[in-house]
């Protein structure tokens, strides 16, 4: 099992790096989803990716998460270029290094909460059956689902399902969590829980969280905010704890106003 948090040399090599990444969707009409984006994200960062609808936020996240391949430029994970990797290697990198949380929970309906969390562990095969079960139960307990281990997704509420999905993303102890509108389909209370969990992953466990969000309260809680418009980064700013949360919110609001 890898130790949680950054590797010792994490300061020198960014966890995720994008160099001139462009993604053009071919078709009858070519659509540019992401255009010449360069950024680097280090260990322990809490990054919000914001922007209007269709600005390429999710597309960028998929590119950083190796779910999609850039048309030009390259994505490096822990300093390793990924464009030369074959499909199986990229899958293996996702399995061990990246955890995904989507707006929709995407739990397998036939597996219990515990079973769903165990799927990535069983795929990785590093732990024996008992250790996997224990770890999955622990993760679910930490996310407040201790009493729902054997329930099927259909027996859980929306917020609970999303928390199971988060536990699943954490199953193989990845240093990076990529979240695509994780609160997008949740009620206020559940959203708050999810936000809280993501914040704790950074603050307490030193993980890197990159979250695409429309939720301004959520974005405002994050230390770094990347704002996209038409597939390009228009602002990438850090809001140190000293800066008031309101400032960040204003910044986002202003940018949104400017682009709409």
């Amino acid at each position: 099992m890898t130790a949680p948090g950054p590797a010792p040399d994490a300061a020198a090599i960014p966890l995720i790096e994008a160099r001139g990444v462009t993604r053009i969707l071919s078709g009858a009409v070519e659509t540019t989803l992401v255009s010449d984006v360069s950024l680097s994200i280090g260990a322990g960062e809490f990054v919000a990716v914001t922007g209007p609808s269709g600005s390429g936020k999710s597309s960028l996240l998929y590119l950083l998460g190796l779910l999609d391949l850039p048309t030009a430029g390259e994505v490096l994970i822990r300093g390793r270029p990924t464009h030369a990797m074959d499909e199986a290697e990229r899958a293996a990198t996702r399995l061990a290094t990246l955890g995904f949380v989507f707006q929709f929970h995407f739990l397998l309906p036939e597996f219990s909460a515990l079973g769903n969390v165990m799927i990535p562990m069983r795929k990785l095969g590093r732990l024996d059956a008992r250790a996997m079960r224990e770890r999955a139960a622990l993760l679910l307990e930490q996310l407040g689902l201790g009493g729902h281990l054997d329930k099927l997704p259909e027996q859980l509420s929306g917020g609970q399902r999303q928390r199971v999905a988060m536990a699943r993303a954490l199953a193989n102890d990845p240093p990076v969590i990529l979240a695509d509108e994780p609160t997008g389909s949740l009620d206020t209370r559940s959203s708050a829980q999810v936000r809280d969990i993501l914040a704790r992953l950074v603050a307490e466990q030193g993980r890197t969280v990159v979250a695409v969000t429309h939720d301004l309260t959520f974005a405002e809680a994050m230390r770094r905010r990347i704002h996209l418009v038409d597939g390009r980064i228009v602002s990438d700013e850090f809001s140190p704890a000293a800066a008031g949360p309101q400032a960040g919110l204003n910044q986002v609001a202003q940018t949104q106003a400017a682009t709409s």
Partner: protein
Amino acid sequence: MIRLLFDIAYTHIAGRLRQTVVSIVGVMLGVGFSIAMAALMQGSQDDFVTQLIDALPHVSVSDETRQPPRQPALDRFDAVEMFGLKPDDDRRGIRNPTEVLALLKALVPGRIAPALTGQAVARYGGGDVGLAVAGIEPAAEKRVSRIAKDMREGSLDTLAADPNGIVIGDGVARKLGAGLGDQITVSTSRGILKRLKIVGLFHTGVTTQDDGTGYVGLKAAQILFERPNAINQIKIRLDEVGQARAVAARIEREIGYKSLSWEEANQSLLEAFKIRNIIMFTVVGAILLVAGFGIYNIVSTIVHEKARDIAILKSLGFAEADMRHIFLIEGLMIGVLGSAAGWALGFGLTELLGSIRFELKGGLTEVTHLPVARDPLHYLIAAVFALGSAGVAGFLPARKAAKVKPVDIIRGAT
């Protein structure tokens, strides 16, 4: 890891229970019926061959040679071309019959019977019937052919004692209008006439024999055909029928006369069986191909239905190969379950067919069963066909599943 792929595959097909069961039943019917059909066809073939072997001599030596004798001209000139040359018809028959018979007795593991055959016409009252007359030694003949068992009236043994006796097929008797004890006239092409008394009637069930064959004593035949001491046929019944081909070849090498094994004599029939088997396997293959379509249908439906799960599994870190394996496993699971059920069905059907009793009327009433052959090979072949077809049926949608782009699905779902 493999367990995980199996678990996921299982949830998929279990989630579509009714369709899965229909597909399994499809494979089951295919496998079951092809096993039963193979058992029946193989059984009837074996039965037929057994009867054939039982009725005919295993090896039959005649006085013919395959090649015409070497002509002096060939030795005399360097280049010779000959037309219309064929082995001559030697009235002396098999030369040195006593020596040849002694040699064969030493050489062949089995029983031997000499015969002299020829064509004649039987006459009784106003009727004429063409007759193939065979002069035999009844005691020896009984040990190489079934003729003694096929006697309906009288006895074959009488021929040994009565030089003027003849045993004819019941068809010949009917055509002539003669019966047991009647005197018939037999004449040959060389103008020899002989009055013979019917001392026996046989019925083999083979029309050409029943309607055109007569048996006389060997001596009587030699007189009738004016071929003293000659024989032109030696029938051999082997202890081990499988050796027929080898023994025939060996005899031909030793004595030079044409020596036919039962396989060679019935080559066209055995080839017809081969073609029948090819047809059978084609039909079996077609049945299982149809079953394969059922499997393709369900796996492809599952791939379509589970696109979202495929997307998420890939985003979690499953590779394309894993996706392929999951759906291939689904096809094969249905194939394996269907084959297992099909084996049971095939076994049941085979036993059922084998137990059906029916009555055949052939002179005497005999009760018989459908001949079925129980051969593990049939089960193996059916299962291999079924799994092959299931594998292909699973593989095609599996390849499609592997190509699912998670981004497309996730984008569409949110």
